[in-house]
């Protein structure tokens, strides 16, 4: 079968003749297409005939070429002649004027002001959704705590394992390294003043009050918050959440409550664990600066009191609610489409971390005012 070709001629009566020949398919017609268009453009005011008598084969791309040539002029100016009946049938399926024009163009791009307004409205709507969700979750949690039998405990234990036990290695690693790094970075300059013993005070206070709860919460936001969003998001896309609703089951009670309870049980425990491992990291590092373990413990005991410990521990409960709540909310907000679940997980992590840091700041102010 021959490649596509084009012969251009002019008949005595003034018509321009474009003779197509060979095989017209997507891989052969590029050159012919451009030449044929140019030939029609050059024949100003003269009728054009596309002679297809030598076309051996013409697939969808070949038909597109012929359609495009017809559409170059007003109706009737470009005639197609001698197209084999089997290809003629394919051509007859299209209304040239309709297919030539894009009937569903992309929407107009918004102006800057309009875009700004839309973003602001989106943020306001999101805040509204978050407030509404806090209300719904609190009500569901309140109901669950006053009616413990209504809680799906099997789900709670399963989620506890994933949120808590499975997160132990990463929490241990990060807390230990945090303790080691802070101790090392502080001990080197403090040594010049012979004050490296006070590094134990620094580690004790910073780990228990701030770093252990915050780092644990950020790790869980990245790990469990994203997992909650992806899991519930997939359920939303698969209409499993709709199924719950039509069964008369409240998705918040069914999906959100077990996750919040599991996070409430596990986050404080992981924070305690992070406290301990972080201190251990600091103690090991300071041992290399000739500060014995017993001295480290004695120093930490002397500077850290019960209120310091509680300042960090209380925060972990609030962080737990934020992580689980925002993860579940983003999951329930998942829209349709392949990227929707990924978007939900990303939004859960980003919003979770922003909220954690903001709430941590609020705690710092409250503790300062209350002199804790």
């Amino acid at each position, binding site marked *: 079968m021959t490649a596509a070709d084009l012969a251009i001629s002019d008949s005595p009566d003034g018509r321009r003749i474009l003779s197509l020949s060979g095989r017209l*398919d*997507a*891989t052969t*017609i*590029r050159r012919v*297409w*451009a030449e044929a268009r140019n030939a029609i453009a050059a024949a100003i005011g003269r009728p054009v005939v596309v002679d297809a008598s030598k076309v051996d084969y013409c*697939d*969808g*791309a070949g*038909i*597109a*070429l012929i*359609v*495009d040539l017809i559409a170059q002029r007003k109706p009737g100016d470009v005639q197609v002649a001698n197209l084999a009946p*089997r*290809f003629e*049938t*394919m051509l007859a*399926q*299209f209304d040239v004027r*309709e*297919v*030539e024009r*894009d*009937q*569903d*163009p*992309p*929407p107009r791009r918004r102006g800057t002001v309009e875009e700004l307004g839309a973003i602001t409205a989106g943020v306001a709507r999101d805040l509204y959704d978050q407030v509404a969700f806090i209300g719904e979750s609190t009500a569901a949690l309140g109901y669950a705590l006053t009616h413990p039998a209504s809680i799906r405990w099997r789900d709670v234990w399963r989620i506890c394992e994933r949120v808590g036990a499975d997160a132990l290695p990463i929490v241990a690693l990060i807390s230990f390294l945090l303790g080691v790094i802070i101790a090392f970075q502080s001990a080197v300059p403090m040594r010049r003043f012979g004050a490296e013993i006070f590094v134990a005070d620094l580690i004790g206070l910073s780990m228990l009050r701030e770093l252990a709860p915050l780092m644990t919460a950020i790790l869980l936001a990245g790990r469990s918050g994203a997992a909650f969003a992806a899991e519930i998001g997939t359920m939303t896309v698969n209409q499993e959440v709709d199924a719950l609703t039509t069964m008369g089951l409240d998705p918040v009670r069914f999906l959100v409550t077990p996750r919040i309870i599991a996070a409430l049980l596990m986050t404080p425990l992981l924070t305690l664990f992070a406290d301990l491992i972080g201190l251990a990291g600091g103690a090991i590092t300071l041992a290399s600066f000739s500060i014995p373990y017993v001295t480290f413990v004695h120093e930490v005991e002397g500077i850290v009191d019960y209120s310091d410990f509680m300042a960090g521990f209380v925060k972990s409960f609030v962080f737990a609610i934020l992580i689980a709540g925002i993860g579940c909310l983003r999951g329930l907000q998942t*829209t*349709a*489409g*392949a*990227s*929707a679940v990924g978007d939900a997980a990303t939004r859960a992590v980003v919003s979770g971390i922003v909220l954690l840091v903001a709430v941590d700041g609020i705690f710092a102010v409250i503790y300062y005012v209350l002199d804790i």
Partner: protein
Amino acid sequence: MTAEPSTGDAAAPAIIQVRDLGVGYAGVPLLEHLEFDVRRGEIFVILGGSGSGKSTLLKAMIGLLEPLSGSVLIDGEDMVTASGDARRAILRKIGVMYQSGALFGSMTLIENVRLPLEEYTDLAASEIDLIARMKLWLVGLGLFTGHLPSEISGGMQKRAAIARAMALDPMILFLDEPSAGLDPITSAELDALIVRLSRNLGVTFVVVTHELASIFAIADRVIMLDRRTKGIAAEGDPRKLRDESKDPWVHQFFNREPEPLPA
């Protein structure tokens, strides 16, 4: 529009040759020792009850599932052993419509159809655009070219998936349950489109379906898979099988008869 069955040429050479094919999962065979040919230009339908391995067989034929044994020759080239450029050359000859549509969710319909044209041809953007738009008009979606898959119905997604499968005008089109989820009118139009493409362009179709109306409207030849024997229960013209087959299961299938209740 009523589809008339294509008149597949019984003397046409085989474009797909399946030889001693065994397919299954985790080493457990679902189908064994399958032998059949698909002739050039015919509409070949794979039938069978739920769980009989229709879609699994289709996956093996298009190279998505490594068979447990045997070979699948497409236009003379073995799909099972081909790799690299040879495999790409075979894939260029086929188009596939998946049961779920499998459109790319982040792309509009026209972008979905444009994709294979952009990757496999050197046509200009405006030319690719026109070809893609025509494919979408062909399946009745000319007014939805700028929509995302999530913005249209399931039936429309299937039609868009067929348009994408046809983008490069392949020699063979594999359609997995094309009529499922479509209304009767759209389904009939789709059947007519399949027959028209087969007759006018000589496109070979391999269709997995159990929609009886579609089978009689389009099929030149069918094979019926039987999960009990892990093989082919019947092969031939569906109208003849319906009227003449002595096999009780084939008779039951074509006449939509339920399993008898236990005594």
